[in-house]
């Protein structure tokens, strides 16, 4: 059969068009249909969590008539592609993303987020003031704060009871507890810094307890230097802990999952981490745990607190009213109660927990946070959610360097101070 050049030309054009045409929006999940909002979130831990979220969003659909299509991206990919997606026509309507200057702050500055200042007033959204500040940039509010996180010291209450030791209240107490545990053949603290970010929690909790909320605010505001003696001392404590073997063997070789496994298996008696770990405890621990603030040098310390990811609206959404309605749903007390029961997270607003099926440890944290947020005490700060990435990188590398002996605490503190001024 002879194929004419015209037929070949037509075929070539068709092939070219096919090659240059991407998948349809419905295929790749991009963009929602009419009356459908695309809600882009960070990858959930398991399919069951996604199923629970979709069931919960079905309640919103039933009341509002607006469908919600959930899309997920792993955290690293989200950070890489989010800006591009927010600029595209097929981008999400609502995103769940980190608060703080390096995350939502950068998006707000680039004009990629919808201004929610008026929506707050019109809908009467009630959130803790300090949490609202974290999604406020240039005097405008750009999101509903996500779940709250506190960082402190979990301890195995059964091991502590067996050895007749009390939870540490001061740094000297903590040293004594670590020595007792070591003598008993128990690893004092499970810790793994291979992922680098857990190192920032060590500094956040030790420094928050040492200088308090005011001292931390002075550091963030540049009124106090990051190479001040308190910062050096906080790093020096962890250097000492590592040198004494209180953090287990070669903590920089251990990843976060192995670190939590060491605690859950009973191999280690304490673990310095955040309130998100309560969920793991509920599922994986067959012993009682307690949760205390990291001790201060001269007395009781404070919890370091931060905010996780929260919902925000894309500036170029086709349906701002529908998106605001979805955020109204997320800001409600009912949603807060649902997240406590289903995700074991702490909402950034006061909620009534009576009648809820809540893990006792989480109930304690909820009470503490509520009291602290309403003026009953102080909360420290989780540093990495508030500082820019250049600083965080200096801090992540710095804590690793202290633990591996590559740098001294003073050198790391100086590097952080230099990074804070970039």
């Amino acid at each position, binding site marked *: 059969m002879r194929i004419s050049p015209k037929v070949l030309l037509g075929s070539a054009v068709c092939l070219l068009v096919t090659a240059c045409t991407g998948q349809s929006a419905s295929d790749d999940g991009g963009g929602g249909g009419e009356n459908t909002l695309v809600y882009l979130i960070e990858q959930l831990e398991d399919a069951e969590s996604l199923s629970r979220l979709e069931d919960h969003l079905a309640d919103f659909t039933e009341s509002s008539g607006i469908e919600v299509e959930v899309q997920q991206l792993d955290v690293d990919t989200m950070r890489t592609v989010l800006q591009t997606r927010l600029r595209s026509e097929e981008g999400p309507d609502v995103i769940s993303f980190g608060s703080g200057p390096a995350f939502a702050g*950068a998006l707000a500055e680039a004009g990629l987020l919808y201004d929610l200042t008026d929506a707050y007033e019109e809908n009467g959204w009630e959130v803790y003031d300090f949490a609202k500040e974290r999604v406020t940039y240039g005097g405008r509010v750009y999101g509903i704060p996500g779940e709250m996180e506190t960082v402190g010291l979990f301890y195995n209450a059964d091991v502590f009871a067996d050895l007749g030791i009390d939870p540490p209240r001061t740094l000297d107490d903590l040293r004594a507890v670590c020595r007792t545990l070591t003598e008993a053949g128990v690893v004092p603290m499970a810790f793994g810094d291979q992922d680098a970010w857990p190192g920032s929690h060590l500094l956040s909790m030790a420094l928050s307890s040492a200088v308090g909320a005011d001292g931390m605010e002075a550091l963030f505001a540049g009124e106090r230097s990051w190479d001040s003696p308190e910062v050096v001392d906080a790093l020096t404590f962890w250097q000492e802990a590592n040198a004494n073997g209180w953090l287990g*063997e070669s903590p920089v070789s251990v990843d976060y999952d192995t670190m939590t496994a060491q605690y859950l298996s009973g191999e280690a008696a304490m673990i310095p981490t955040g309130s998100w770990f309560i969920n793991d405890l509920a599922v994986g621990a067959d012993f009682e745990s307690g949760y205390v603030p990291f001790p201060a040098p001269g007395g009781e310390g404070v919890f370091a607190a931060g905010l996780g990811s929260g919902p925000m609206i894309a500036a170029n959404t086709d349906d701002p009213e529908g998106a605001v309605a979805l955020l109204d749903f997320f800001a409600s007390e009912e949603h807060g109660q649902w997240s406590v029961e289903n995700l074991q997270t702490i909402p950034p607003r006061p909620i009534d927990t009576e009648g809820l099926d809540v893990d006792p440890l989480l109930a304690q944290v909820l009470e503490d946070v509520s009291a602290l947020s309403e003026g009953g005490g102080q909360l420290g700060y989780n540093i990495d959610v508030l500082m820019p990435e250049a600083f965080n990188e200096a801090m992540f590398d710095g804590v690793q360097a202290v633990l591996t002996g590559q740098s001294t605490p003073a050198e790391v503190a100086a590097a952080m101070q230099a990074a804070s001024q970039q």
Partner: protein
Amino acid sequence: MTAAPAPTATATLPSPGRSRRRGRRPGRAGVSAVTRRQQARLGVLLVAPAVVLMLVFLVFPVLNSVYYVFVDFDGLDTTPPWVGLGNLTELAQDRQMWAAAWHNLIWIVLGTVGPLVIGLGLALLLWGVRRGSTFYRVVFFLPYVLPQVAVGVVWGWIYAPTRGWLNRGLEAVGLDGLTRGWLGDPGTALYAVLGTAIWTATGFVFVIILSALRNVDNEQVEAAMLDGAGYLQRLRHVVLPQILPVFLMVTALTLIGGFAVFDIVFVMTGGGPANATEVLGTYAYSNAFELSRISYGTTLALVVTALAVPVAVWLDRLQRRVSIEERGA
């Protein structure tokens, strides 16, 4: 006296230039000029999709990358400020970049020599083996086709300080003093990751060289043996020259991998602890996507390319020359 050149057949043939000028006349084969033009157009059309794809996915991104070198793009600003040679100047003064480049150099040397030596050794060992040859090839090649992420995760477990097989093995044979957190110790982390990469690449080198060995002229080897050449002499003077083009090809591929290394380091250590395993690839990624310094990350990536391309071209030319010489011989 000079003899007048004898008329030859070639002297009477039209030159290619003449032929083109006569293109409007019917050719000797009876193909009309119109048909030839149609054929030319068809050729262009058939090539066009590939050209368009190359332009869109290769040429444009490269040109775009070059543009990013001269601006300060943070991924957000649609009109990034022009900084001229600022990124290149910073790069030249960046101590962390030089440390990463040094790690790349170590990687290139050990990551090339290791697989080549081990792969060649294994191939020579199994050259004469007929029974189970397929099994050996599959077993040794398997690490190369496994996803690097999976390889990195599994080797991370092997290197784990308390439960890792490596430390357990060392303890089992009484070498407790050598146990350590291999990936968390700045003195061993780079070599631990490199060890994993060598394990992965060796299978590839082995399979390719074994295939080349199967094409070695056995008569020459036997003749050398009859002439009294020992094993190493036969290897050096008879076998290696015959597989040299393939050996150079494998060297080129492994070497270029050393410039472009990223995934295995990213998965196993992320460049840590405290930059002890940082290579140019992870440093470029970190700048571009973690610090939102797209321009500086792009500059680093282009420098890696600029370093790798001449080496690749040189090795390719060397391989061609060796191949031609071998055919000529």
